[in-house]
């Protein structure tokens, strides 16, 4: 076992840090904010394109992706390092979402050659069209339909909570292709452009959107959406994997989507922030840092945050060895979000009334960072498989527990 980074990896990290210090401006961060609520042209803006060119030249894009599809064929740990540093600067350069891994696992050669290089270069971005009004945790209950018509499929129905649907270039959609088959059997996955006629996007404003949450809060100012499909016609080549095999195909990427730099940082950022606040010259921080009770709490939470880091390292190690998760990704997706909630709640009781002031308020602490996080942190335990469903998976897949008569969940989500 090795818990350290190699000298080459340390060098890579400081190179990336130097690059960020020299090149990343506020304007760039603002332009690239996929969480921004405002409507804007889909895909990358001019500053983002320039950034991708620069970091592409340095070999920092798609490090762990196969070289025949535009990646570097390198190490997942290296890619993690680059992703973490950029995320800490407020820039998402990794392709979040389960699209790319699922395409690599189940896509045709043509789909791989088309999508993977464009995803790596940031020219194409996917939103995730899984959840519906009546299909959340119980995703296989979905109704949105795709009916074959010659060389095309016709899509009708609705998706919900489709984050970034207003800025993504494509949708990664799960739809029902066979109504007569059993719940999990008649499902397929499609990928197609968001500007396909008949597709409408409507914003869903979250409790973090007014006032708009500060940067780096959990699910910050993310805008999510409803997406409506009204006789949307797509070519049959948009199908990913076999028709009616979508439940299996969809699950291929999800586990990877639950782990990585993004999920990790979302859960531990407040730990660093509050400790640095307690060490600062702020009167409130200085007073708190002398309290034995606060010190005990901070130490406990810091230890929990280390577990988030170590579980992420474990997941990276498994991926790097080319292995598959049995339950480890799900375990991380229980621990990290719940820690994110615990740190938020503990900070509430440290800060008292000042902690309740939102962004822009007089006397707010660090521009409402912690108050907004109270709202945001819970979200991490719901999406991409709620903590309950994740515990089901740890118990059933990891420990071999039997399914109950009334609860057959623990599937794809």
């Amino acid at each position, binding site marked *: *076992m090795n818990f350290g980074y190699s000298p080459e990896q340390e060098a890579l990290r400081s190179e990336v840090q130097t690059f960020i210090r020299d090149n990343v401006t506020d304007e760039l961060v603002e332009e690239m904010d996929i969480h921004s609520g405002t409507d804007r042209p889909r895909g990358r803006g001019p500053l983002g394109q320039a950034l991708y060119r620069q970091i592409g030249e340095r070999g920092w894009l798609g490090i762990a992706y196969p070289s025949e599809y535009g990646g570097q064929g390198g190490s997942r740990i290296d890619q993690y390092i680059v992703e973490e540093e950029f995320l800490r600067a407020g820039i998402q350069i990794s392709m979040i979402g389960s699209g790319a891994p699922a395409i690599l696992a189940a896509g045709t050669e043509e789909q791989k050659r088309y999508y993977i290089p464009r995803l790596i270069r940031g020219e194409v971005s996917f939103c995730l069209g899984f959840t519906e009004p009546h299909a959340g945790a119980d995703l296989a209950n979905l109704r949105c339909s795709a009916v074959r018509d010659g060389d095309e499929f016709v899509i009708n129905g609705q998706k919900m909570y489709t984050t970034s649907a207003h800025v993504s270039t494509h949708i990664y959609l799960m739809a029902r292709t066979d109504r007569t088959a059993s719940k999990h059997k008649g499902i397929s996955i499609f990928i197609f452009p968001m500007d396909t006629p008949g597709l409408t996007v409507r914003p869903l404003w979250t409790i973090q959107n007014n006032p708009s949450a500060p940067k780096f809060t959990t699910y910050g100012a993310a805008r999510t959406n409803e997406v409506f499909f009204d006789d949307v016609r797509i070519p049959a080549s948009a199908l990913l994997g076999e028709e009616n095999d979508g439940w299996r195909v969809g699950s291929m990427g999800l586990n990877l989507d639950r782990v990585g730099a993004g999920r990790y940082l979302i859960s531990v950022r407040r730990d660093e922030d509050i400790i640095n606040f307690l060490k600062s010259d702020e009167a409130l921080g200085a007073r708190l840092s002398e309290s034995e009770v606060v010190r005990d709490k901070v130490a406990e939470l810091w230890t929990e945050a280390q577990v988030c880091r170590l579980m992420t390292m474990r997941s990276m190690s498994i991926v790097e060895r080319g292995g598959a998760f049995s339950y480890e990704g799900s375990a991380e997706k229980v621990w990290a979000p719940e820690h994110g909630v615990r740190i938020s709640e503990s900070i509430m009781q440290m800060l008292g009334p000042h902690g309740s002031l939102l962004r822009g308020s007089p006397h707010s602490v660090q521009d409402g960072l912690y108050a907004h996080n109270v709202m945001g942190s819970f979200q991490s335990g719901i999406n991409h498989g709620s903590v309950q469903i994740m515990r089901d998976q740890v118990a059933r897949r990891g420990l071999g527990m039997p399914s109950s008569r009334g609860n057959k969940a623990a599937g794809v989500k």
Partner: protein
Amino acid sequence: MDVLLDEEEEMIAESARGYLEANCATSLVRKVEADPLGYAPDLWRGAAELGWAGMCLPEEHGGSEMPLVYLGLVMREIGRTVAPLPLLPSAVASITLARHGGAALKDRHLPQVASGEAILTWAFFETDARLRPETVKMTAREEDDGFILNGRKLFVDHYAAADLCLVVARTEAGLSLFLVDTDAPGISTRELVTLAKDRQSEVNFENVRVPREALVGQAGDAWPQIEEMLDLATILLCAQMVGATRKDAEMAFDYAKVRSAFGQPIGAFQSVQHMCADMQIWADAAELLTFEALWRLDQGLPAAMEISQAKSFCNDRLEAAVRNSQIIHGGIGFMMEFDLHLWFRRVSAWSMRMGTSLEHRARIAELLLDSPGQVRLGRSVSPAPAVPVTPELTEV
């Protein structure tokens, strides 16, 4: 970066598990609980033949100079079978002796320790049983030819089995370490009755004379060496707790699959499944924290933070895990004839040894809050450096 076990580490762990599963049934554990000797000599001889007693001792003294991580894996397997072996105190005291003892002491004793013929232990705790230097009241008065020890030690692990004991006492110059024969004149003991039913003693020293050569390291100022010894005992105990909890949890997982209620296995109830999922997650987390700390010790990196993280976490969460296991087992887990309590009592007792959660978290808080510079996860926080550092992203 690869936090999973490599092939050699897997081999070490598997061979340890194989030996213990073949030779340490719970009937043996129960027998030794009632035996004043407190360990199983045959099992110990076999373990010594496998090289466990000298795993981390220098080759010149018959050891095999392996990393502490390997010893941690063996301790994990010992915990798994709750094997009655005095390896933890003997390894900790002998490694300390190897690091800080004089050549004569080492030549005389270490080869015998490495071969398993001699067993060592150590004595630090007194009435105020915290991991702090000021708790040591025991005195070592200097006389021309040596020292005279007076005082009382508590919670001395496997004293009855040990030939020699590393004793912490206060000379005029300050804290010092002495290697003492366990049956030296002037020593008397009383057995403590512990939750783990392991052997721990109160050891009284009344004008116990030791020669000057018994001094390990310098007289006075030995706190850094003592703290290192206590840290090593702490983190190896964590490894043992992890192993014991794994087995204890597996017993609950297995039981939940076969015990039926309301027409289905209890393991099919989601509330039971979620208790089991948490147990697995906590044990995984404790193991990662523990082995990161051991790995750092092997690299010569500061590890005070990581050791305290591991122990405070083990204390709280592994205790919660074995408690869940008791609940999942229902009434049977409360019965003497059922084996589960062999693990439950030990994990509980160990969670109170080598520093409570409160003590360890106080140390973590000191390192985090009373050091200069900003913190960032993944960057080590070590004791405050002498020179001021820039606040952002410093590797201190």
